[in-house]
Every structure is written in C-alpha cells, then in structure tokens.
C-alpha cells in the first residue's frame, strides 16, 4: 500500500462555548500515550480536573492539548467530507440554520 498523503485537513471546530481539550492518557509506563477523546473546559486547570475525575482511577499520565491548536490531517477517504463523495454531490443546501427562525 502506498503511503498516505495525509493531505485532507479536518479544520472544523470541536467546541464553541468553552474550549475543547484533546485528552491523552497512559495507563502504565510501558504503554503508548492513547487518545481518549476530549473534554470541554474554559482553562487547562479545569480541563485537568475533569480529566482527572474521568481517568484518574486508571491513568498515570494525562496530556491535554487545546483542540483549537491541534492540526488534524487525514488520508483520502477518511474524513467525514471525504467518505461519501456521491452524497456531497447530491447535496442541495449547506445545512445552516438559515432563516428558519
């Protein structure tokens, strides 16, 4: 298999009211650091508190990265907008709330 290009950028936000923090944990020193999702928090201190509540029972290492500083790249056909080219071509609107209100 040819190496992926990772030239698809997934740059939509992961949160808006509060900052989103990508969360990584390691359960033992021999383990790889593992992405376990994200928490919403206004500051890294609050994010750390939340991550500790959720994973403190098992993790020995927590890493928190601001989602808005995290650059996400995907190979062709992986990201949502890339998974269904036919679907995208058939779409008629942009899906915004628009003037329904």
């Amino acid at each position, binding site marked *: 298999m040819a190496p992926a290009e990772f030239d698809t950028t997934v740059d939509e936000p*992961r949160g808006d009211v509060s900052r989103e923090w990508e969360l990584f944990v390691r359960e033992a020193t021999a383990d790889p650091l593992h992405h376990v999702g994200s928490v919403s928090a206004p500051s890294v201190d609050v994010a750390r508190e939340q991550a500790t509540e959720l994973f403190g029972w098992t993790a020995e290492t927590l890493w928190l990265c601001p989602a808005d500083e995290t650059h996400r790249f995907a190979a062709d056909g*992986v990201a949502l907008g890339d998974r269904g080219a036919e*679907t995208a071509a*058939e779409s008629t609107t942009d899906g*915004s709330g628009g003037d329904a209100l």
Partner: protein
Amino acid sequence: MISVSKLLCGLDAEGDGLRYDAADKSSKSQIRDRKQRRPVVVWNCTKQCNLYCQHCYAAAETEPAPGELSTAEGKQLLDDLADYGAPVVLFSGGEPLAREDLVELVGYASDAGIRPVLSTNGTLLTEDRAERLREAGLQYVGVSVDGRRERNDEFRGQEGAFDRALEGIEASQNAGLKTGLRYTITKANAPDLEGIVDLLTDRGVDRFCFYHLDYGGRGADIQDVDLSREERREAVKRVCDMTREYHERGHEIETLLVGNYADAGYLVEYAREHVGEEQAERIEGYLRRNGGDPTGERVADVDYQGNVHMTQFWQGYSLGNVRDRPFGDIWEDESNPLLHALRNRSDHLTGKCAGCRYQDICRGGSRLRALSTGEGPFAPDPQCYLTDEEIGVDTAGGVDHGAAD
C-alpha cells in the same frame, strides 16, 4: 427509558417498536441481532434554538453556532449510522426545526433504513412542516412541555411558548404523526404533572415521557431546583398511580420514566406493594433484560459539531469526532478505558451500588450525576432514592462496599 404502563398495566411499549421495528424488518437474522445491540443515536443536529430553556442539556443558543455539520456531512453521518446498524436516529438540538434541511435529512435517514424520530419544543412545527416530515418518513414527534402555561413559559424563556407548543402538537397529530409529551420534572413543575397529562389526553395525546433532571449543560446550573430524593420518590409514585388510574378507566395512556434507573428498583417495590409478588418478579425480569442505565451502550449522542458522547446529557466529554472517523469505529473503540469500564460497570461501581440488590436493573444510575459528587465515574447516583432496606445494603452501619477491584 422505563415504560411504566407496560410494566404495571401490560401495554405494549411504543418505544420498543420505535427502536426495533426497523431491525425486525430485515430479512437477515444477523442484521436483526446486530441491530438489537446497537444504540439509539441522538443527533443534536443544531445548537440553535428559538427558546432559551433553563434546563437545556445542550446549552443551546438563539444564534447559529460555528462548525455545524452541513447537509452533506449529515447525510454521510446517517450513512455511517446505517452501516453500523443504528436502529433509530433521534433528531434533537437546539431546536432541530431551526434547520431548514430537516425534512431532507429525515427522508435520507428513512431511506437508509434508520427510523427517524424528532425531539422538539413544538413551537416551529407548522401544519405544512409536519405534513412534509410525515411524508419524509418521520415516525414519532416528542414535544417538550414543562408545566402549565405560565410555568412553562418562564422555564422556556418566552411568553407564548406553551400555546405554540400545543399548536405544534395539534399540527403533528393532524399530519398523522405519533406524538408524545416530554416533561422534565423539577421542584417548580412537579405540582403540574397530572394537570398536564389531563390537558393533553383531552387533546388526543397518549404518550408521556417524564425525564429526571440530569446535570449536563444548563441543567448543571439548576441543581437547586432538582427534586430531593423524597420528592422524587413521591413524583414517581404519582406517575405510577396516575398510569394505573387511567388504565382502570379504560384510557390506555403510555407513560415512561427516563434518566434515573433507581426507578427500576422502585417499580419492583411498587409492584410488590400494589400489584402483587408475581407481577413484581415478572417486572424485575423484564427490567433485567432491559439492562439498566444505557450510557455508553444503548444510547449514543452526536452533537452539532460531530462530537460523539456517551449520552446526550454528557456533552462535556467526547469520545471522538465523526469528522475524523466513522461513528461505529469510535463507538466500538474500547481501548478507551472509561468506555470499557462503563460497559463493564459491575466490576467498578462503588459505595452502596456495589452491593445493591438492584444493580443489574439500574447499573448505578446516571454517571453524570455521579460525577457531580466529586467521587468519580463509578460513585452512586446522588439521586438514588431507594432505602437501604430496599436495596439490601446497610450504609448506616458503616459497612465498606468499596469497588470490587
């Protein structure tokens, strides 16, 4: 979701049909079996809402939020859900009717073999829109009303919301859509409970879902109006009494309780006292098959930006994002130790839950409320209202019921 009417009065629960009928139609047994285990997926397809409700778990805003999934992305999400075998997608918000492409998305879900249902405040549901939604394949409309007129309007932040919600209910019914009530019980509106049921049954509504307050979004900010344990027990008893009274009068309303699986244990206790031991055992068996709190297993949530949550109320923690990989891959990834542990909860529950005789029909209740205690994700739900005697645990005696591991 616990069907009080089914358990106490033997009525077939509409929710069972909503969840499983699509799977039952499949000719392949492995697909039927697979779909039976897949979660109902709540999709908060927008954060925008025309109201500003005090208890909104999604913390919806009146203005559009950035990063909402587009129509094309929404369709791809629905394809992913169909591929994974999700039986039902619940369009929620914000207010899903704020999306002008809602009919298109509902139709797409229906064509993909997922049963589309709608959770709405009802105020934007016109006759025309209801008709188009029915034609697109919508199966059910749940309209939120939280008390009598003045109480509801104060709670929802807009005068006239109650009357417009009733108009929406009428429009939905006129279109031939199965329509039900969603009612979040708090100290403020608990007195209105029977009155609202009486009012809406007169208007032809026969399905009533009573939600316990969960502590997500703005719901976390109003814990002071949440019912006390004693008040909660009394409210649930009133739902049980009311359901039986309606059925005894020949009016077979459907009533459901959502969001606090202490209700499961309570229903067994209630049945033992009011209906009989044999029925109580039958009810407990049914609830055991039902499986207790569904967080991270039988219910999933995708928010307006594509973040996947373990329940719609738990928006502050996300397992991943459907823009990065398909929903099914995120949901199946038990390398996440929290997801794995919550699916194997009996190995981790602490405190009185560890020794509770109703653990297998409750599974600790709300993990979000448990987290609010600061005792971690496996602590007891602080809104469990069952007595030590009922659950078979002597907490007053200082017995250590710590985690099993």
